[in-house]
């Protein structure tokens, strides 16, 4: 168990591309932290720098107060689970799991004991003498985790470990990873682009955009209080509804639409109003009128998509909105729905900087 400190970490590739532009953070002892962001945002690079697979251009990374910038990957006392499992195809499951221990000169009977313990924990005891190509995707994933667990590292690193699994297995393994991490209580850093995975696994979530941490905090805080337009639109499924607006001193204006209940906003700059689909509700005289386009029935609830009356978005067509309704609301297509929302739950962003204003 250990904490991981990143101080001013930057990564510039030899061709001049900047992948990580200054990350400062501390991962606490035993914490499960998730890096989430769109592809190419630098989250994997950051993880690989902690693993030692990428050189650190600038800044320091330490594990338990030991600076590891120049320590080789095998000596950092970290273990990594790769996206495509990266099992050694010519070794059995047992061989895969014991390889790292053998290289550290651990006695044979101790290796066997550890491998069998880990195999039991992951329920792969029956496959110990099989080759990786005789296993299913889920089983390979378990072996990859087993290989990390037997090492008893100070830090677990996960690089999108579930993206190669099918949807059902992904949910199963997600829960299992969470359970395992609770049980072993090892500091873990997990990279994903899947916001559901990020929300459900993380103790703390770091949203990364363009090589920087955009916001870091408990998943639910990020959902309720996003600091920027980027975080608001990245976290939450279905995505937050965004509407370009201006402020006239008392109301938010877009075309024929004027919404009361706002104050203390700049009047000259373009703003963006953000409303979560679950914060909308059906109202007799609501702020919006929506023409129903598509209704998606998800079972417990329906997602109703449609254009708003009298409003243009940035692209000058009717703004497409999403409304999360209960399963019994089934409006006919092309019909009109009146929607309202609580102004205190709405978010307002500066369009240029993306900063949250309210």
């Amino acid at each position: 168990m250990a904490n991981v400190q990143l101080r001013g970490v930057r990564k510039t590739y030899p061709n001049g591309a900047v992948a990580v532009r200054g990350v400062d953070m501390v991962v606490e002892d035993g914490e499960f932290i998730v890096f989430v962001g769109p592809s190419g945002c630098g989250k994997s690079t950051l993880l690989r720098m902690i693993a030692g697979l990428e050189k650190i251009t600038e800044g320091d990374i330490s594990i338990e107060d030991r600076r590891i910038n120049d320590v080789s990957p095998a000596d950092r006392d970290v273990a990594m689970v790769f996206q495509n499992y990266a099992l050694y195809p010519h070794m059995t499951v047992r061989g895969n799991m014991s390889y790292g221990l053998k290289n550290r000169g651990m006695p044979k009977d101790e290796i066997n004991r550890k491998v069998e313990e880990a195999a039991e924990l992951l329920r792969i005891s029956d496959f110990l003498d099989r080759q990786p190509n005789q296993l299913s995707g889920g089983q390979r994933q378990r072996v990859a985790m087993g290989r990390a667990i037997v090492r008893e590292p100070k830090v677990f690193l996960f690089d999108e470990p579930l993206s190669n699994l099918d949807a059902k297995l992904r949910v199963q393994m997600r829960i299992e990873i969470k359970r395992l991490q609770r049980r072993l209580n090892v500091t873990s850093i997990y990279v994903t682009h899947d916001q559901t995975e990020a929300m459900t696994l993380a103790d703390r979530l770091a949203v990364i955009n363009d090589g920087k941490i955009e916001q870091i905090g408990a998943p639910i805080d990020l959902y309720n209080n996003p600091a920027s337009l980027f975080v608001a639109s990245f976290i939450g499924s279905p995505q937050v509804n965004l509407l370009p607006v201006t402020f006239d001193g008392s109301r938010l204006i877009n075309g024929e639409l004027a919404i009361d209940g706002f104050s203390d906003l700049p009047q000259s700059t373009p703003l963006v109003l953000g409303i979560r689909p679950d914060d909308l509700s059906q109202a007799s005289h609501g702020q919006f009128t929506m023409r129903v386009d598509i209704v998606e029935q998800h079972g417990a609830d329906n997602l109703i998509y449609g254009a708003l009356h009298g409003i243009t978005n940035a692209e000058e067509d009717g703004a497409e909105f999403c409304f999360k309704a209960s399963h019994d609301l089934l409006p006919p297509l092309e019909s009109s729905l009146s929607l309202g929302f609580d102004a205190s739950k709405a978010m307002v962003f500066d369009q240029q900087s993306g900063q949250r204003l309210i």
Partner: protein
Amino acid sequence: MKRVQFEHSSLPYLFVAPQIIIIAIFFLWPAMQAIYQSFLLEDAFGLSTQFVWFRNYSDTILSPSWLQAAGFTAIFATLVTFISMGLALLLAVKANEVLRGASTYKTTLMWAYAIAPPVAGLMGNLMFNPLIGDLYKFFNAIGWDFNHKLDAFDAGFVVVLISVWKQVSVNFIFFLSGLQGIPKSVNEASMMDCNSPTRRFWTITFPLLAPTTFFLMVINITYAFFETFGIIDTTTRGAPGGATNTLVFKVFQDGFRGADLGGSSAQSVVLMVLVLALTVVQFRFIERKVHY
């Protein structure tokens, strides 16, 4: 289950016919001819022919010159195979780690592949020429009393060197593509599991290259047995005193230079059986250790 078939159709036979015809004309027929010839004794002008059963076999195979050629071929093939593969593997591993100018480096190493063995032999011949050969002068200058026209070891050195040089590029290409076929993440996983690059190479990289290595071994032994003919013919021609005769070169020498068609046919049949046996051994005992 109903199987789709061309019932009573000659179509499939038509499709394989070209291949069958080529094999029949260029392999089966000459092989049959060689076997038939090996039982005959002919005078130099082909005026009289006598059926002698296995006389040709017992005469040639038991002769000291054939045994000498067989011994040299064994040593030669072993050296050429191991040195050219080892060197190529080393170069491929290093080339695989190169980040800048990688393609220039690789293309340069592959160039020798485009050179035909007799041309390689001619080039070698020039380099080892006692009058103008740079390598000849160099070896003598560093105190090695080098003379491949007189010394058997020196002559063997020349043919091995040229044969290896010619074959390294082929092996390099295959090893490099084999190395690039190893997933990057497997290498990275091994970096996190093992600190020593040497140990990583022998425990991860080399086992994963085993299919390539096995394939190249078969190819290289065949090369050393047969294709080096052109190199030997343009350099030592078996000299001094038959010390650098390979079995194939001796077949040619006895048959076409010595006009002993029966004896040389018998040698070629023995050679065919030897290579067949060698290939069977390779597939039986070595391929088992290969993971695909």
